[in-house]
């Protein structure tokens, strides 16, 4: 019988799908595949980080080297939602690791970046993949990721969480 997800403890992702004992839990290899295939983030970027699940489909990333099964309120950052068919990175994960992305990054003009941050949906010119994109803009001389957008039918939907939205 497959082990169950223990919702009050942090459980480390198994290295590969074959070693995973919890039904529906992705492995580290699959998480690395996702960032590499979807956003072009090289696997080495995550060499010093481990991935954990607490709550079904809620993955965390941490630089802490702690034993499996730790019962704490949080461990590093929330990182990736894997419950739905299409995985979704969190805003904070994209801000922390999105600088390493080379694919599916849409650079928004400043006015569009402000609308995105305010939580607005807007039409955009984009001839790449549909689905979740890293939305970025130029800031202090470089392109910086702001958050996650969902691109469908010519429209970019802002996935910025309500509490983080701002009208600059």
């Amino acid at each position, binding site marked *: 019988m497959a082990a169950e997800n223990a919702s009050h403890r942090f459980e480390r992702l198994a290295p590969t799908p074959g070693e995973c004992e919890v039904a529906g839990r992705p492995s580290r290899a699959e998480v690395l595949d996702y960032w590499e295939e979807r956003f072009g983030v090289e696997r080495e970027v995550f060499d010093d980080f481990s991935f954990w699940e607490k709550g079904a489909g809620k993955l965390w990333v941490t630089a*802490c080297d702690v034993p499996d099964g730790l019962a*704490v*309120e949080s461990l590093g950052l929330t990182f990736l939602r894997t419950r739905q068919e299409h995985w979704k990175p969190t805003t904070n994960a994209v801000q922390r690791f999105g600088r390493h992305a080379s694919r599916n990054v849409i650079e928004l003009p400043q006015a569009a970046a402000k609308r995105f941050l305010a939580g607005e949906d807007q039409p955009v010119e984009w001839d790449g993949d549909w689905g979740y994109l890293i939305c970025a803009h130029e*800031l202090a001389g470089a392109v910086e990721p702001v958050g996650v957008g969902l691109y469908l039918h010519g429209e970019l939907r802002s996935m910025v969480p309500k*509490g983080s939205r701002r009208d600059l």
Partner: protein
Amino acid sequence: MDALDRYEPVIEEFDAFREACARSLPSVVRVNGIKADAERASDALEAEGVRVRRREWNDAVIELDARKPGNTWAYVHGWIHGQEEVSAVPAAVLDPEPGDAVWDACAAPGSKTTQLADLLGDEGLVVANDDNLGRLAALRSNAERLGATCVAVTNEDARRFTLDGFGIDAFDAVLADVPCTCEGTIRKNADALDGAGAEASRKIGRLQADILRRAVALTRPGGTVVYSTCTFAPEENEAVVDAVLAAGGVELRAFDVGLVAAEGLTEWAGESFDDSLSKAKRFYPHQNDTGGFFCAKFEVTA
């Protein structure tokens, strides 16, 4: 007549102290090195029309002419964090090394936690504890916004905290930035002195000493413990440090963060404290145009 009058015998330039306490604080932020350096953060702020002034004592601390630094792209990206200047002192004094295991015993809302994570280069472990569940949300949200991946948040009574489950025997460094009467926040909280006084301070002093004892107990020999408060009250500062020194196993160490400060007191209200308390520091509002603060640095010797 208020709770600050009793400090006249120990504070030099007491009139200037009084005047400073009556002024509002400058708007100061700490740059989050996990995401950007002070140069880029300053550039981003200036591009939005915010004038910045770097502080000499600490590269990461900058003064803004904006009252609401939260309404800037630099804030949205987690490059800056609104943090009173003197509140950046204790983590700088603790000064942990990348890879260290650090305990922030009373961590919410996380300004010092995230500064510690930054000083670790986001490598190692910061266990950020707070007993107040309501304040944990702010702690978690600040750690997330600032991208601090080396932080584990716990919700325990610091006096009974254990290392169970963490896979380590002791911390390398501990920050005991304890709950206090907060007299030193008078420049931002007009009611900071309500209920303040020697009696209130003696009462909370017992809790503070218990937390500091736990901090010492969980630190490895050779490790560092920093004790800090944002109050002027000797009953919560020197008296607490003195009680913990008397139990042995720790010594005070001198430090200099580059801000003007007065020495810790070695006597107060007829009571005398260990001579080494002069190594502790009192930061007064008129010295650096900040809030008030107390900080002591211990080395655990056994």
